[in-house]
């Protein structure tokens, strides 16, 4: 079992803010990810958890704050430095994001062919090894469209593993899968964690899978970090938002007559402004 040590954090976020245009999605998030731990980022739809993950892998630029990955600040990194960091990470996308024009084998071999000068025969050995690790041995000549949803995710994991990353990111690993296949993916994540002592970061809203794989978990709600702790700490948490999420309680409906009335009559501030202008 994982035990927190005094080791340097692999990833360290300080007051991270991210905006899409004028709308701020993440309102200042700080936490550390320790080497070898599996951190699960929980959150509802629209909570900002996907944005957080995209920012962690450098697909979104933070508008303020810092993300330090292996001693390198992502927010200030140049394109070349960013690429250097990205070679140390692997990302498994929600839909797999396999390249449809290539076979599964070519997909897995792509980062090796692009970034290394390995012999073609070595690359083939590595790619079979990676496919075997995710339970897809013998599928290298299939095209992604011939694979089922669960197999696509496994192939995506194999591709993320190709460069032997130090940090592995998963976006919604069990989304859109039936419970048995989803459990298989969870099992795969646990195996990777045991076998390679990799730092793994998983974004999900599946509670069962989160509690199965997490060493620590954090809950994001409306762009704020609400809670961070071990699965046991989360289970025994009394914080209302955590309880609501874990106990699967729906958002409370609008109560009180005045609130209801206001909801019906309220105009958005900018809508008011336009009507005002027209009136003049």
């Amino acid at each position, binding site marked *: 079992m994982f035990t927190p040590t005094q080791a340097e954090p692999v990833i360290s976020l300080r007051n991270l803010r991210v905006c899409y245009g004028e709308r701020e999605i993440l309102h200042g998030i700080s936490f550390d990810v320790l080497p070898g731990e599996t951190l699960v980022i929980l959150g509802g739809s629209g909570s900002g958890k996907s944005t957080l993950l995209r920012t962690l892998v450098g697909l979104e630029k933070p508008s303020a704050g810092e993300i330090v990955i292996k001693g390198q600040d992502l927010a200030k990194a140049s394109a070349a430095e960013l690429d250097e960091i990205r070679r140390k990470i692997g990302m498994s996308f929600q*839909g797999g994001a396999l390249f449809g024009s290539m076979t599964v084998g070519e997909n897995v071999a792509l980062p090796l062919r692009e970034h290394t000068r390995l012999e073609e025969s070595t690359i083939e050995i590595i790619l079979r090894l990676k496919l075997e690790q995710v339970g897809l041995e013998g599928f290298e000549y299939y095209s992604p469209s011939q694979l089922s949803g669960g197999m696509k995710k496994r192939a995506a994991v194999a591709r993320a593993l190709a460069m032997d990353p130090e940090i592995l990111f998963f976006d919604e690993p069990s989304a859109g899968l039936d419970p048995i296949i989803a459990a298989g993916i969870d099992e795969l994540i646990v195996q990777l964690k045991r076998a390679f002592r990799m730092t793994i970061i998983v974004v999900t809203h599946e509670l069962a899978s989160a509690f199965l794989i997490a060493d620590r978990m954090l809950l994001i709600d409306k762009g704020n970090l609400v809670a961070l702790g071990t699965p046991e700490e989360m289970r025994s948490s009394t914080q209302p938002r955590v309880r609501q999420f874990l106990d699967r309680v729906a958002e409370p409906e609008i109560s009180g007559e005045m609130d209801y009335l206001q909801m019906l009559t309220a105009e958005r501030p900018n809508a008011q402004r336009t009507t005002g202008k027209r009136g003049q």
Partner: protein
Amino acid sequence: MEIVAQLGSSTLTGLSYIGSLASLGARAAYDTLVAPFQRKPLRLQRAVSQAMEVGVRCLPILSLITFFIGLILALQAAYELRKFGAISAVATAVAVTMSRELGPLITAVVVIGRSGSAFAAEIGTMKVSEEIDALETMAISPIRFLVAPKFLAMMVMLPCLTIWANAMGIFGGALFGITQADFTFTRYIRASIDSLLLHDITTGLVKSVMFGITITAVGCLEGLSTGAGAEQVGRSTTRAVVMSIFLVVVVDLFFTALFFFAGNQ
């Protein structure tokens, strides 16, 4: 006042669009011309397969279209020339019009329909299914991996296709010349070649290279700026075709004017 403001803002949008096209083109040019010397090998194999798709597979339909265009040109020219008893000048009219203007332009339009739209659809689909994001997280530049080979393929293939289109147009004219204007095939071809200056062909080819750059830049930019959702791919594809045709005509006008005034001095 509102009209002026709108005019201003659409001018700005237009300029920033041209700016994005230029920056995409410049990055692709860097990856094609400079990066290979910095131990970042160019994916020549991808460029060759693109060239196959853009160029070779385009030949049948392009041949047919430009053959007909040549024939139409001959018919239209003969309508006027007949009045002056100069029907034998048909060969000149077709050859010059094809190689100076219609060869490059028709080729560009056919390539927009086949490849410009395909670029936008391919890259747009990859954008929607997070494949572009996947490339970036693997530290593979989508520009180097996807866009640069397309630029290279287009810049090589479009002039080649244009030469082919010119020839097919002349053959189309020859069909009229032989059946209606007492030419033999060899005499018609000879008359065409005699009427052409090297200048006529090179200006057409310069234009076709510029068309190739324009079509690729628009197609790839529209693909890369596809929003979320499958219906956005359709929008990008449509926009790519419409914008490409418009910009190709603008580029055509610019270079034709340039050659006209430069040639006068």
